[in-house]
């Protein structure tokens, strides 16, 4: 492409007035091209979001004929705020987010470091890491549900054979292990993806830095703490943001594993069953706004953390 002689860009040679005219024409055309996309976004996301906020101040039911919809002020918010089931859902979701994101980050970083070193079969390894990512979450959950089966599951069989377990365990129905079981699916499905994102960040770090550190006699561990980690920080933060937001809105794995079971409701399941199951649209909308605020809070925390680090 570089061999092609660059033609004289005709528009740039024109006078100042016609350039502004051209500029104006460009602007108009650009907005014209953006109309379909903006219309879809407005209709599919912005309008529903505004509607959700409005609904959260009303007592709207899905079967509107029974009770006429009217403005109820902050009633829904106070109902949700005092609902122990909501509080439980928030705590459970936060627990899940902390567990999965930290495991995925640490394991993902280890995998990224291993795959980043040169060895035969690196390409194969990277392809293998994409497999869990490509499997639909619901399907992955079903696979694991079967693997964790209390009588015919492979996890119990391996555990008993290796003498880690004395007898088969009902991982999913036992409340003390259910969160771990569901986290295992998420960790399995997402860790390779986190590793791939971190790997992309690792490959940008110039190799001469490590060579110079070798000359200065720095150990591999020192190199990791002083070179790799600081330079990887932007990639780490972005990965953490995306993963946290994903974990906070978790729905699929929990729903496949437990359905509507009350003690395992996440925020998303609470909202879904309030709106779709019970038809309490107004109440569910208030919970949605709460959830939106919690997620926004995390974004603000991460973004300020990033800003502080840049200075």
């Amino acid at each position, binding site marked *: 492409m570089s061999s092609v002689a660059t*033609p004289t860009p005709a528009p740039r040679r024109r006078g100042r007035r016609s350039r502004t005219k051209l500029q104006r024409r460009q602007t108009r055309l650009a907005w014209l*091209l953006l109309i379909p996309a903006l219309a879809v976004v407005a209709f599919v996301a912005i309008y*529903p979001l505004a509607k959700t906020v409005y609904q959260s101040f009303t007592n*709207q039911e899905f079967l509107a004929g029974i009770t006429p919809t009217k403005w109820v002020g902050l009633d829904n918010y106070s109902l949700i705020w005092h609902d122990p089931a909501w509080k439980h859902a928030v705590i459970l979701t936060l627990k899940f987010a902390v567990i999965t994101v930290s495991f995925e980050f640490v394991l993902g970083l280890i995998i990224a470091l291993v795959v980043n070193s040169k060895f035969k079969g690196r390409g194969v390894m990277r392809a*293998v890491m994409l497999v869990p990512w490509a499997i639909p979450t619901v399907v992955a959950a079903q696979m694991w549900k079967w693997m964790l089966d209390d009588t015919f599951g492979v996890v119990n069989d391996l555990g008993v054979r290796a003498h880690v377990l004395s007898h088969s365990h009902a991982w999913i129905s036992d409340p003390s292990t259910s969160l771990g079981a569901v986290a295992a699916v998420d960790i399995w499905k997402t860790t390779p993806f986190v590793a791939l994102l971190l790997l992309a960040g690792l490959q940008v770090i110039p190799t001469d830095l490590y060579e110079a550190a070798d000359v200065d006699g720095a150990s591999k561990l020192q190199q990791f703490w002083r070179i790799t980690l600081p330079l990887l920080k932007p990639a780490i933060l972005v990965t953490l943001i995306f993963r946290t937001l994903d974990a906070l809105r978790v729905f699929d794995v929990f729903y496949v594993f437990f359905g509507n079971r009350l003690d395992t409701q996440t925020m998303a399941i609470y909202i879904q069953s309030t709106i779709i199951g019970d038809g309490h649209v107004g109440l569910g909308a208030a919970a949605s706004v709460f959830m939106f605020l919690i997620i926004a809070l995390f974004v603000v925390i991460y973004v300020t953390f990033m800003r502080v680090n840049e200075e």
Partner: protein
Amino acid sequence: MSATAESARQVSRPVSRVVRMRRSPVGRFLWKVPFWTLIALIFIYALFPFYWALRSAFTPDPALFATPIQYIPHHPTLQHFRDVLSSDFFRRALLNSTIVAGSVTLISLTIGSVAAYALGRFRFRGKSPVLYLMLSMTIFPQIAILGALYTMFSGFHIIGPIDFPKLYDTEWALIFSYLIFTLPFTIWVLTGFMRALPADLEEAAYVDGATPLQVFYKVLLPLIAPGLVTTGLLAFIAAWNEYLFALSFIQSPSKYTVPVAITSFTGASGNAFQTPWGQLMAATVVVTVPLIVATLLLQKRILAGLTAGAVKG
């Protein structure tokens, strides 16, 4: 780079080679054992659940529900695949998912590439707000608008004679709502592709008297074809995998998409007391293999697309 840094680098090579030579062959071999063990562990961890689904799909029922469990089926069978593929329920779900995911992908690519053209090749006021809007949409929690969409889909009056049609329990509800996550993502990634193109070709076309639209579909679109394929695949996978909306907006079993069908699958025999794990695993294999094959074929491009969507954002 300054001269001193250049010379420092030249010095560094022989020294680091000496450091490397200090390690004896035995030491090097011993270091490699944990390394390859780790590689093997990662390999098994990533693939074992999929292997287990395959193994369960090929194991006949009597052996599947018996202990001790067989790690490799002694008498592999295709019966589970036959049962699943002959089930109307599952076949319909495959068709529904293909229609929904295919339409969503086509719509996103069409609208998205036009928008990406504006955002990637034009300079105009208000460009960065639009880009930020698209970026914030990619992290938008879909659950937040579940109730609003639910009431919208039961139909409402817009203005004058125009009504919003009742979309509840139709594929249209899914196609419409899936655009929330596919369109902004498509625009964001395709804008990156558009921006990376050199200006020469475009300028040459303008000199030859081409209109902006001709430049778009005769010059730029063919050049970003790889980007379209990758983005399209990612959008398709996202739509194919979606569960929350599909579960909430579809009521009739004949309109279920694959994820909903897989969680409510009772098997060809319809025995309500024993989950038909063999058939279920056969179904998961049928559903996943095309995705895995497509992903592996486009591996490098997918990685580039995903990292453009996440790391640079």
